[in-house]
Structure formats: C-alpha cells, structure tokens
C-alpha cells in the first residue's frame, strides 16, 4: 500500500500542491486589485504560446515551450493594456477581446500544423496530465533517501518546486511595495514607487507560475488556484499577511483532497476508473470557496467604506 502510494500518488500530489501554491500567491494580489481575470486570460493564451514555440523549434522540449508560453502571456498583457488605453475600452472587455482572439489563433495554428504525431492537443492543455507524473522508482518511503531512485523523479517536480520557490521569494522581497501599491496607488506613486512596473511584474510572475504549472497540471487548475484559494482566504481574515497564509493552506488542501478524491473516490463509489484529477482539484477549491462564502468569519462587506464615501 505504502509503495503504491509513493509510486503513484506522492509525486502528483506534491506537484499539484506546488503548482497550487505558486498560483495562489500572486492570486492574492490579483484578487485584491480586481484583476482576478488576468489569471483567466493568461491561462488561455498559454496555448498559442506553446503552439508557436513548437512551430518554431519543431520539438516538444520543455524550455522553448515555457518560453513561448511566457512570451504569449506578456504579449497578452501588453495587448490588454494597449487596447484599454488606446481604445479607451473597459478592462474586462479588453481582456475578453485579447484572450479569446489569441486562443482562437492558437487553436487554428494547432489544427493547421501537423502536431498529431506529438502529444500536443487542446485537451491536454486544459486538463494537464497530473496522473502520469508518477515515480516508478519510488518503491517505498525509503526511496526518498535513495539517490538512484531520486534520480527517477519526474522532472516536473523539480521545475515546479523551483517555480514555487521563486514566486515565494519574489512575494517576500517585494511584499511592501506590492502591498502599498495595491492598497493606494496614488500614494505609492507619490512615494516614487514604480507602480506600473510593480503591476506588470505581478502579472509576469503570475504568468510564470501559470506556465510552469500549466505543463504539469493544465490550465483549469491554474485559473482555479489563482482565484479560489485567495478569494476564500479573503473571507477568513482582515489582514493581508494571514490572508496569504490561508490561501496557501487552501491551495494545498485543494490539491491533496482533489487528487485523492479523483484517484480513490470513484473506487469508494464502486466505479473502476479514476476521474480527472485537475478537474477534481478545481472542484474541491470551489467547494472550499463555497464554504467560506457561507461560513467565513469575514465574509460580508462591512463598515463605512462604501456608504460614507463622498458624493
């Protein structure tokens, strides 16, 4: 039993949790800045980025694809800003125009190019492939100290751990400017903080997290983790520090519970086949958010903030 868990469940759960945390951290600030849907936009444009990278390099190797996806995310963000400012279009609509058009271009490119021979399709992009990230050499808990076995760990684990660590590090280092400029942009500018760069940096970090997670877990988890754990966390506390902590807890809980339910849940119900882990993780994060909406101690808008604002 233990060996089966280490071989087939440990690494997917770890990778899922790391991906969830990497997305939830920047998600906190996106939610507070009313930019939650930037996460949605980013996860859509990852597809055209990967397709273009494949067409340029003609290989399905990781680095070009990560670069392609990151490039597409940055292009999308720049396009959204440009459309917003140049066309004087409200942000939501600018986002909608950009990511749907880029996504359509990605699908078209995919259909046009001969990618049938390689594993590159829309469904994979959406659902990821968490279940396949197994650790065959992990024949038991003792494999964790066995160098040869450790070498057989799926490469996604290392990548995801590095991405998660980098996101966490950046969040800590830029905590104060992020907090100040998210709360009061005018004041931040008066302090000479580069608010435009901070905003763009946040989106780039989010894109990085999305791209790293995308390859392993698919874009559904990415969107869900950007928004659901931070949103649920917002309803638990009135302090940013604890909100971020709660969001990490919720992200990990979603990943672990979601994976376990997807893998073992159908068995408990008497079915034989596991269901999509990515979909289940998103569903669990939604359940957590629903509970927070119903019972979270700080779920309601309070105070004089809204009504007392001057006419």
């Amino acid at each position, binding site marked *: 039993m233990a060996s089966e868990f280490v071989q087939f469940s440990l690494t997917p759960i770890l990778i899922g949790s790391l991906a969830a945390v990497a997305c939830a951290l920047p998600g906190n600030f996106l939610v*507070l800045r009313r930019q939650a849907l930037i996460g949605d936009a980013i996860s859509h444009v990852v597809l055209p980025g990967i397709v273009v990278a494949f067409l340029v390099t003609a290989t399905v190797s990781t680095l070009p694809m990560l670069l392609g996806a990151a490039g597409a995310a940055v292009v999308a963000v720049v396009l959204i800003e440009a459309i917003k400012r140049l066309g004087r279009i409200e942000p939501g609509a600018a986002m909608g125009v950009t990511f749907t058009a880029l996504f359509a271009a990605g699908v078209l490119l995919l259909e046009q190019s001969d990618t049938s021979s390689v594993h590159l399709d829309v469904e994979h992009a959406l659902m990821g492939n968490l279940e396949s990230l197994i650790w065959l050499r992990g024949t038991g808990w003792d494999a964790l100290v066995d160098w040869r076995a450790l070498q057989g760990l799926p490469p996604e684990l290392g990548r995801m751990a590095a991405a998660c660590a980098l996101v966490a590090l950046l969040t800590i280092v830029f905590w*104060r400017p992020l907090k100040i400029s998210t*709360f*009061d942009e*005018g*004041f931040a500018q008066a302090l*000479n903080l580069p608010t435009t760069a901070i905003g763009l940096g946040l989106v780039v970090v989010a894109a990085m997290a999305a791209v790293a997670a995308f390859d392993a877990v698919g874009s559904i988890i990415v969107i869900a983790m950007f928004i659901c754990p931070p949103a649920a966390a917002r309803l638990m506390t009135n302090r940013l520090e604890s*909100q971020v902590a709660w969001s990490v807890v919720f992200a990990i809980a979603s990943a672990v519970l979601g994976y376990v339910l997807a893998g073992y849940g159908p068995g408990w119900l008497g079915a034989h086949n596991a269901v999509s882990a990515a979909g289940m993780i998103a569903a669990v994060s939604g359940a957590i958010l629903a509970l927070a909406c119903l019972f979270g101690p700080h779920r309601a808008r*309070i105070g004089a*903030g809204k009504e007392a604002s001057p006419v």
Partner: protein
Amino acid sequence: MHTLAVKLATADGRVLTPVAPADSPLAIRGLTVSYGEKPAVFSVDATFAPEAMTAIIGPNGAGKSTLLKAALGIVPRVSGDVTVFGRPLAAARSRIAYVPQRASVDWDFPTTVIDVVLMGMYRRLGLLGRLRPSHRETARACLERVGMADFADRQIGQLSGGQQQRVFLARALAQSADLYLLDEPFAGVDAATERAIIDVLKALNAERKAVVCVHHDLATVDSYFDHVFLINVRKIAEGPVATTFTSAHLQATYGGRLAMAHIEQLNIADHAS
C-alpha cells in the same frame, strides 16, 4: 508677474515677502495637464509660499486635484516642470507627504490602521528593512496626534469616513516631510475630525512645515489658511489670503452669479481691491 515689492502681513503678524521659485516648497511652471483634448489644468505657474498654509480653491472640475497629482507626477503632464524646495521633484520626494482623496482607495482592503500608518515609513524601511519596535512607536505617536491611537489594530473598513481621513493624515505624519500636500482633507468628515485635522495642520505649520490643501469650503478659508491659490483650469491668482481672497478674484474663479452668492454669504471685506 509678482514684482510688487510690498511687504504683506498675515493675521498672526508674520511678515511675508514675494517668493522666489528657489525658496518655494513647491514651484510649478507652465503646467498643462489634459485628459483627452480638454485641458484640465492649463499653463499654470505657481510658487507656493514657504512655511505657509495654502488653500487651493476653485469650482468642481477646475483642476485642483489634478494640479496636485501632476505636481507629484501621478498624472502625466503635457508640459511644465516642477521644483520642490528648489530641486527637481525626483530629488526631493522624501520631503513631500501626500494625502490622497479618501475615496481613491478600497477601504475593504485587508489591513489594519497601524499598518496603513507604517506604509508612510516605507522610504525609511525600504524593501526588506526590519520593522523595529521604534517604528511601531513612531506610527503609534502619529496616530496619537490625530486622536486615533485607540484604533491602531482595527481593520480599516470598520472606520467612519472621518476616522479614515485621520488615518491618512497619520500616515502622512509618519513620512515626516517638510511639505504636506492634501487633497480635500475635509470632504465629508464630521466636525470633530475637521477640528482635529486643522489642529494638526496648524501644529505642522507652527513647526515651519508648508501645508497645501485642496479645499472646497470658502467659509473656512479665512480662519484655516494664510495663503490661497485660485484656479479654474488656469491660475486666477495666488497670494496671502488678506490680499488675494477677494470678491474680484472669486468672481473670476467661480464666474458671475455663483460667485456673488458665495461672496455675499462669506461677507468678505474687500481688503485690497
């Protein structure tokens, strides 16, 4: 344009002389700001007096707030340059404290009163500087000055409008600046808060700090401020209240009938004109 070599005295007897831009806490030349093609502020020169309490006055949409924001580089300028204590803006930012309009932020943000005040100390703390007990003490002292020390650990959304405004002022105090720029600090606050804020501002002024407020209540100009700056897209006039806050200038600022109504209400003695 101010070349009259006249010595002027304020109500409390301090003698003021016309200011050279280099001595001014905030000097603006040829400032134009435009949203689209409609200028919000047009070709404004301003030389705010040192160690003075100045009110920026004008009708709605006259560009009062825009003037402050453009001076701070928060909104882009079409033309014009700004010096702060005789130096370029970028070199003198640490000497400015800014209090934005209360309505400009999301008061539902998950943070506490003391945290907001600590934001004012960012320049001293930097990216990763340790937050020491002394910093907290300073922040608490700033809250004490605005009468909000008891609220230090409250979530900001739980405050009333006046309390929020006081917290913003405390954050500005934490910046320990030499020039305080406030955007409508008295808008929509209760009488007690208004009293508290003006007391703090007068105390700052007594410490020889310059205070510039966007202000909308003509009735209190005389008692709160010693200088005025009248603007309606263009500068109308600037100078000591005694000589500049006149019915003629108010008429030029607010336009015919409206101004007359104001002026009669205010019972402004036409000191100078």
